[in-house]
């Protein structure tokens, strides 16, 4: 016990750490371990059969495809929004800044019904697509729209602090050495922004693959076509098909953990870049 921590005069280490570990174990770790344990009961064949059914494969393809596209779109626009918020002064900047956090604050079910209404063929946005005979709500495009909504803050909020701390001297030096503004941006600014950009992208992607509430209202939920993986887990569970639900959930959970590790590595990379200069 003494070798495990550095001595300190402050009291309360034992009880607080003990409580933290017990609570973490009971609420998070043991239930998650239970899921993995349950999925082993299927055996290898059963497990593979459950996660490789045509319906499951279609759901995986849609979830990962739409999440990836949404994260790409958010990476680009997130960079623009973060840039504008940090570098430019214009009326409404503070409101814009506050609004970026809306997807964190607005419950997903509320976002879900709002998006479904907006993009329905008679909705404020949907009717403009309807003119060109394009359907957004109740198609795969709807899934994409919802995932763009919930992923938006991640890229903005990871780039913003890095951009704020970027020293003007670097850009001045580049400019005085004859670089054009584009060259300065491309070779001086962008390399610094790349680690947080990738972190934000990974965070948005990780959030998107697990998202449920904001998607299911706009998706249409047709098995094999517009059914996302979290919904498939939900439906299997409701039909008492525990084996399939557990197996698919175990796959998703494993992917989430890999992403979490990746994000931790990216954040360490950002921190290193960030403090070096």
């Amino acid at each position, binding site marked *: 016990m003494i070798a495990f*921590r*550095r001595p*300190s*005069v*402050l*009291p*309360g*280490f034992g*009880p*607080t*750490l003990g409580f*933290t570990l017990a609570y973490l174990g009971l*609420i*998070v*770790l043991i*239930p998650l371990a*239970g*899921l993995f344990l349950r999925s082993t009961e299927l055996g290898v064949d059963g497990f593979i059969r459950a996660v490789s059914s045509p319906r499951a494969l279609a759901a995986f393809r849609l979830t990962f495809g739409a999440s990836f596209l949404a994260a790409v779109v958010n990476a680009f626009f997130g960079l*623009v929004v973060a*840039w*504008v*918020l940090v570098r*430019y002064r214009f009326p*409404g900047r*503070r409101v*814009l800044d*506050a609004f970026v*956090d*809306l997807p964190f*604050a*607005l*419950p*997903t*079910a509320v976002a*879900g*019904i709002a998006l479904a*209404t*907006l993009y329905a063929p008679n909705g404020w946005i949907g009717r403009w697509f309807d003119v060109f005979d394009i359907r957004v709500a109740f198609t795969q495009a709807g899934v994409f729209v919802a995932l*763009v*909504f919930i992923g*938006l803050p991640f890229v903005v*909020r990871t780039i913003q*602090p890095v951009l704020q701390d970027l020293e003007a001297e670097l850009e*001045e030096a580049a*400019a005085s050495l004859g670089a054009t*503004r584009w060259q300065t941006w491309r070779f001086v600014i962008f390399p610094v922004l790349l680690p*947080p950009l990738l*972190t934000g992208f990974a965070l948005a992607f990780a959030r998107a*693959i*697990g998202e*449920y509430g904001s998607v299911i209202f706009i998706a249409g939920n047709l098995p094999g076509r517009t059914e996302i993986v*979290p919904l498939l*887990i*939900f439906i299997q569970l409701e039909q008492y098909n*525990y084996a399939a639900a*557990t197996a698919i*959930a175990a796959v998703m959970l494993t992917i989430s953990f890999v992403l*979490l590790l990746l994000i931790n590595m990216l*954040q360490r990379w950002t921190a290193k870049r*960030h403090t070096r200069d």
Partner: protein
Amino acid sequence: MTVTTPEARTRPPSTTTEPRAVRTGLIGLALLYVGLFLFLPLLVVLTGAFSRGVEAYFTAIREPYALAAVRLTLLVAVIAVPVNVVFGMAAAWAIAKFEFYGKSLLITLIDLPFSVSPVIAGLIYVLLFGRQGYLGPWLLEHDIRIIFALPGLVLATVFVTFPFVARELIPLMQDQGTDEEEAATLLGASGWQTFWRVTLPNVKWALLYGVLLCNARAMGEFGAVAVVSGHIRGMTNTMPLHIEILYNEYKFAASFAVASLLALLGLVTLVAKVLLEWRFGDELASNRTGAERGKS
């Protein structure tokens, strides 16, 4: 040498900014994007809520099932949030005030619930406490209901809001170090006295901030709660679930009316966040580290 008038100082030098057209274009693009994807959905909730008039709005939110949902949502939050506050403070004390092995692993594990899909968060408790779960037969024998009842709703909510308070407190308390607490202890203060009189006043705004975020998520949680609820009207339906049911029954105005209450909660949370950051920015760790750690 140039003369630096106040005006010249505020105007950015042309070598380190973009041409005016590019600036205007980027600002326009950012406003359009945020307006289209964030502002319009919010507006749709508010107009949808009043689409049948003010009277229909109040009828919808005064209806017995709606009131039961509001009560249940409040009840779940009143249990789940304080539990996570106690946990967050204990975890922050252990992590920020002491040096021990495995600390960074512990911080990662605390963040774990953010990377778990809400549906899976519900599923893990069904697998433990459901009728076919590990503890199912025992619970049935003793007539204890967890799934499709209040305890399940609370558990699922505690899981999804698990990291909020801890992650606001830990970086701030790490930055503040242990000098003040050590001085208090050496002057003869007990552990509790040190905590209440030294540590807590130092972190109160960060704590409030964490509680606000935790509460907003607790009241708005949908996926995890949907799995463990069973959708029993008037019994296990929280506000988000009630919104879903009304929407699926094509009672759009009523659905948006209840949704507007939750949207209002979200807006209040946002405004409180802006005020806290503006007024007590230095005392909130989130300004420096929150974004890097990736909020969720």
